[in-house]
């Protein structure tokens, strides 16, 4: 505004001199120039105002919920320690040459993957199931693997999910923070594999192997001051694809073994159950026999006691009577009764009997 005014003043001051100028054409030319200058000054002023506004407003920046920001004034962080971290919200800083804003993802979980121990493949190929076929050997330039404690080759890869716990260190300490994290993970994978045997990595101690990787990574993170905290470390291991058949055979053999063992156990079960029930039978039978014997004997004793007075009164008569009674009863059951009186001459008789060995199977006899 003041500029505008001073310009007017300038014009005013020169006006009385104009008539003195001999050339009226010249006068009108300078007037046109003045007009043009005045017009462009207005534009320049407007542009300057806009620029000023832009300059001031460009100092505003917002920090998202998943990040923190650090303001660098002349290259130095503003604030001390944790105070230099700006939380979510709207903030203001001087525009570029004075201040700079550095953003750090913090609550967001980061993810890196170590594939130094995995054969050449990509996620897409893996998902589609058309991974390149395995050759007879592993080319160190292409195929990754880890060497196990027993000198074997196993594929193993780890996926680490981590959080940045110390953003200042993560940002100001490393040029590529995630790169350093990934290499620490690579090293942890390799170090753990060097202590575990192939069998432990693949089947027997998967959890222990996983733990060893996580522990080693945590040690490295502390030692190298990576400023990160492990959220989760997932490890996947696989026998070389070249050996799939023989590794499967081991699994099958293991299954067969448990099948054979299960069969043996069921045999054991059956045998013992049978033996136990047999044993119970034997004991019960003995028990029954004992009882029957004693019962019978008891009955005999009772009977003996009852009969004794009769017998002692007249033993001979008693004998005869009882014998005849029994014979009478018995003879009704006997199949063949043969009466063979003595010969008149007193000589003994000869009697021939045909003894049939199998009298109970007349039908089979007929068949013969």
């Amino acid at each position, binding site marked *: 505004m003041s500029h505008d005014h001073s310009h007017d003043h300038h014009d005013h001051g020169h006006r009385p001199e104009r008539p003195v100028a001999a050339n009226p054409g010249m006068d009108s030319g300078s007037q046109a120039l003045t007009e043009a200058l005045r017009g462009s000054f207005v534009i320049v002023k407007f542009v300057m105002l806009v620029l000023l506004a832009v300059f001031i407003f460009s100092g505003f920046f917002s920090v998202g919920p998943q990040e923190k920001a650090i303001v660098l004034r002349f290259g130095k962080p503003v604030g001390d320690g944790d105070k230099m971290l700006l939380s979510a919200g709207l903030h203001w800083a001087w525009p570029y040459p004075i201040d700079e804003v550095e953003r750090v993802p913090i609550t967001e979980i980061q993810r890196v993957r170590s594939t130094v121990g995995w054969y050449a493949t990509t996620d897409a190929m893996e998902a589609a199931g058309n991974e390149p076929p395995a050759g007879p050997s592993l080319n160190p330039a292409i195929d990754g693997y880890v060497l196990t404690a027993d000198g074997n080759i196993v594929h193993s890869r780890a996926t680490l999910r981590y959080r940045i716990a110390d953003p200042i260190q993560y940002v100001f300490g490393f040029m590529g923070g995630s790169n350093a994290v990934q290499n620490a993970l690579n090293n942890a994978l390799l170090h753990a594999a060097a202590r575990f045997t192939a069998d432990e990595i693949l089947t027997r101690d998967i959890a222990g192997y996983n733990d060893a990787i996580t522990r080693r990574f945590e040690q490295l993170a502390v030692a190298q001051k990576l400023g990160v905290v492990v959220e989760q470390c997932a490890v996947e291991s696989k026998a070389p694809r070249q050996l799939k058949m023989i590794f499967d055979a081991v699994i099958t053999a293991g299954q067969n073994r448990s099948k054979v063992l299960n069969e043996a156990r069921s045999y054991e079960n059956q045998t013992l159950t049978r033996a136990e029930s047999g044993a119970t039978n034997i004991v019960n039978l003995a028990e029954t026999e004992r009882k029957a014997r004693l019962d019978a004997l008891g009955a005999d*004793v009772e009977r003996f006691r009852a009969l004794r007075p009769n017998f002692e009164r007249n033993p001979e008569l008693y004998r005869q009577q009882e014998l005849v009674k029994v014979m009478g009863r018995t003879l009704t059951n006997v199949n063949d009764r043969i009466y063979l009186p003595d010969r008149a001459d007193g000589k003994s008789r000869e009697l021939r009997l045909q003894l049939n060995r199998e009298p109970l199977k007349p039908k089979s006899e007929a068949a013969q």
Partner: protein
Amino acid sequence: MKRNLLTFVIGGVLAVVFILLLFTFQVRQTEVAVVTRFGKPVRNLTEPGFKGKWPWPIEKHVKFDQRIQTFEDKFTEDQTADSVQLLTMVYVGWRISDAQAFFPKFAGGSVSAAERMLESILRSAKTATVGKHSLGDFVNADPKQLKFDAIESEIKAQVQAQLAANNCGIVVEFLGIKKLGLPESVTQAVFERMTSERAVLVSKSQFEGEAEAQKIRSAAERDAARITSEAESQAIRIRGEGEAKAAELLPVFELNPALANFDLRLKALEQSLKEKSTLIFDQRTPPFDLFQGFPTNRPSK
């Protein structure tokens, strides 16, 4: 007058800005810088902030990122102490600590030139270190014999010594093995060995399974036999007890042995003639003794 003052202020501000631009520069938290006078490094700046210098062409400043950067070398083959060809790849966390030393060393402070030097130092350090260790130091199930960390620190120490001797302005913060491998032909041999190991495992689990199953079966049979024989001995004892009790009753029969015997014989007779029997008797057998005195069918003879 008003206009002159304003022009003066604007001009002054512009001049200050221009002078500042000429005479000062910023060093960020993450940077180190060196000031050169006529191309010769004269001042080393390691602290961040606003710094002064003489304007170009007298003095110039060069800034370097001083944060740790990771460098990975090539996967190279060396021979271990036990004559195994082993491929190793290491990663190094290094940073520029001294810009004044770094700048003249590598053609205007080229990071890639520094990495090339780092690589050649690593190459010899790796060869020397791998050659001193056997494969069992790199991989071992026994944590006491595993010298993984020792190997890493040996390489690191050699690299550090070399860097210090060269005065490169570089510091190695950490070093680790990134990858271990065997030559391609050896992997095939390893596969063969692994295959035979697996084959042993297969037959082992087969035989062990059968042996164990056999053990279980025979143990079961032994136990069954024991159970049966125990039951039998118990049965014998039970019967014996029965006999003993019976023996206690037997004296009753002694009161009249004749009756007891008669009764027993009578019972035995009845039992033996119970079924399917043929009885041949003569006239002396009661009750057929009643036939005695009857005439026979051949009385004349």
